[in-house]
């Protein structure tokens, strides 16, 4: 096997409990986003655009849709002779097997995969964030700083800092301590869940961590604190672009609405940094004479006959005459009848909304989740 400078390990095994019924039969990274994407398209496209051609995707919960979506990685140009995308679910060995106990354990169980490429560095990313990032710049920074680990950090508003894993740094961007969701944050640099490790160092810590029965085998809770305890050189890499954790229904909705802002920071139209996805082969969208479409993102295969305002429509959506959709995110193949009113909602894949149904929400109310009955039952 040809040697690779860097191998990416994409953590895609999260259960996504906070997304409720949206993840009842789907892994979180496979959740739809932005009209034509699934969340995992962002980290995968970032990898391919950053020149990383070897990506291990660690799957665990509800992997069926995700596995078939990934295929051999062709949509992201990751069908390579050497490397490419590899789906890595937990597997059974001679002496038994077990689920991934935590993020660190997931990598530990796949040390064999990483070692096949004898990389100098390993990029650890996760499948539940929406952002565009050049990992190559992160790697340059890591090398220049001769770090053992580099963690990408984002400046968050001070009043929100207590919701994140916060890095405290010295003047030279070296991380001095790490606190998960601090009540009184001393810094507003939040971890983005994007790490580069020097593989040799990481491997040692993974092995030590595995030997410690008290450990929860998690990067944030165990590996990073252990490395900091040993005064390993861990650097913070400041990232200034758009980044959003879409782990909850509210944040998933918000991230979709962010795309509609006139000065949206997440430019999907950038030809030098395309976000790739599996193509559903749909014809151009049809907007009827009776339709009224304002401030929307609409994907191919839609047929719009009603009024749509400030919303995101995924492929194959049908909107009947007289219906009014506002502030909503409609997943693929949603069928909306006539004279339906939907405001501030996420409508699940393939949902059928009967004529005349009204889903209006009060000011300040939660995002409504509209889906097929079996989906909501779960």
């Amino acid at each position, binding site marked *: 096997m040809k040697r690779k400078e860097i191998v990416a390990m994409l953590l895609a095994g999260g259960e996504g409990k906070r997304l409720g019924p949206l993840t009842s039969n789907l892994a979180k990274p496979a959740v739809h986003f*932005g*009209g*034509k994407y699934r969340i995992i398209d962002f980290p995968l496209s970032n990898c391919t655009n950053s020149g990383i051609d070897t990506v291990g995707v660690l799957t665990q919960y509800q992997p069926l849709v995700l596995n078939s979506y990934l295929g051999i990685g*062709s*949509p992201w140009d990751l069908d390579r002779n050497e490397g490419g995308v590899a789906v890595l679910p937990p597997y059974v060995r001679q002496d038994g097997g077990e689920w991934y106990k935590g993020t660190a354990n997931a990598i530990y169980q796949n040390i064999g995969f990483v070692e096949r490429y004898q990389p100098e560095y390993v990029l650890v990313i996760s499948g539940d964030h929406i952002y565009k990032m050049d990992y190559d710049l992160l790697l340059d920074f890591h090398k220049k700083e001769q770090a053992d680990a580099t963690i990408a950090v984002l400046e968050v508003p001070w009043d929100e800092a207590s919701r994140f894993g916060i890095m405290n740094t010295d003047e030279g961007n070296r991380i001095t301590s790490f606190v998960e969701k601090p009540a009184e944050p001393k810094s507003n640099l939040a971890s983005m869940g994007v790490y580069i490790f020097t593989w040799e160092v990481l491997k040692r810590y993974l092995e030590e961590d595995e030997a410690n029965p008290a450990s929860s085998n998690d990067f944030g809770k165990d590996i990073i604190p252990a490395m900091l305890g040993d005064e390993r050189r861990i650097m913070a890499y400041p990232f200034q672009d758009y980044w959003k954790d879409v782990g909850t229904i509210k944040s998933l909705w918000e991230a979709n609405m962010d795309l509609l802002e*006139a000065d949206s920071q997440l430019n*999907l*139209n950038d030809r030098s940094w*395309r*976000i*790739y*996805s599996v*193509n559903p*082969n*749909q*014809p*151009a*969208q*049809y*907007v*009827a*004479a009776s*339709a009224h*479409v*304002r*401030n*929307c*993102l*609409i*994907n*191919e295969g839609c*047929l719009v006959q009603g009024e749509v305002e400030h919303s*995101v*429509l*995924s492929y194959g959506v049908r909107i009947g005459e007289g219906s009014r959709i506002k502030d909503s995110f409609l997943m693929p193949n949603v069928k909306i009848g006539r004279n339906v009113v939907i405001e501030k909602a996420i409508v699940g894949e393939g949902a059928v909304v009967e004529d005349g149904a009204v889903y209006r929400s009060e000011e300040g109310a939660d995002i409504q989740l509209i889906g097929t009955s079996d989906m909501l039952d779960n």
Partner: protein
Amino acid sequence: MKQVLGVINLVNELDDLEELTYNRTIASVPFGGRYRLIDFILSSMVNSDIHSVAVFAHTKYRSLMDHIGSGREWDLARKRSGLFLLPPAVEEVQEMLKGDLYYFHKHRDFFYRSSQEYVVIARSHMVCNINLKEVVNAHIERGADITMVYQQSGEPQLGKCRRIETDAEGRVTDILDHFGPTNSEKISLDIFVMRKDLLLDLVETSLAKGYDHFTRNAIMNNRERLKIYGYAYKGYLGVVNTIPAYFKHSMDLLNPDIWTRLFYDTGNQIYTKIKDEPPCHYTEQSHVANSLIANGCRIEGEVENSIVFRGVKIGKGAKIRNSIVMQNCVIGEDVSLENAILDKDVTVGRGSTLKGSPNAPFLAPKRKRI
């Protein structure tokens, strides 16, 4: 349908598309917001389980090669069978003038090497979504030598097409050329099914007699000797080889019934080259009515009764009516466009007015700056 070979014959394909084919073969003329003409027949073949398709390219096929590439989007990038792009195998320029039978002959190895028993020969300018499996089955059941696909239609045709006549049993009694008056309402799709060995025999015997035109010589001249039957195709058909026909059949897609009939009713998708464009962005000021819009566009102006291809930018205050705007065009602010066809990469500067008539649309060639 392992036993069927597909041939898309671009040799001397009738083409009156003016500026649209100055630099490209008719097969790669953009159509319907995101397709090229060849996508329809190529997808139909693939959807009918034809896994081996030869495209007989003739002239100006660079854009076609770029479009179909390895055939991956059509699932034709394969180890066994797959897509074969066969350019003219000529030694001297004069040979380019010869008919399609000559090209079939030059590439006869392709036919000899294939194990398939039957051949479906088609053109690229027919916009349709056809189940060829049914055509081949009908051909075999009826014991025909050749089956020709036609559509019964009383509508006047703006494209140049052949008409055929059949008797009560469906046997083809006459095949006419593209011109001349006729009362027949049977429009040929120029899709032929026959056994591969019959095709090879027709190629060799016609050439031996000095004839080199497939339809005119190999088929029409043998119509009494061979059992040629018609097969009626009932889906949507657009014969697109003239500008008025291009305009009409494009605008047909603005009828949701036709849009649904062509793209959804058969259950078979039309494939095309993937561009990875994001969904179309309609801004606060945009106003779009009765239009077909592709991905990657940003629409800030008004669009009515029009077709907008992938990656087009339409500025504030622009008014686009009854027009076709191809991929990556940039329409400046306050531009007014009516009955126009803009080929790809056209830039229309702020405040310009371009107007054609429905019968003679304004045509802007590729990359023009107005």
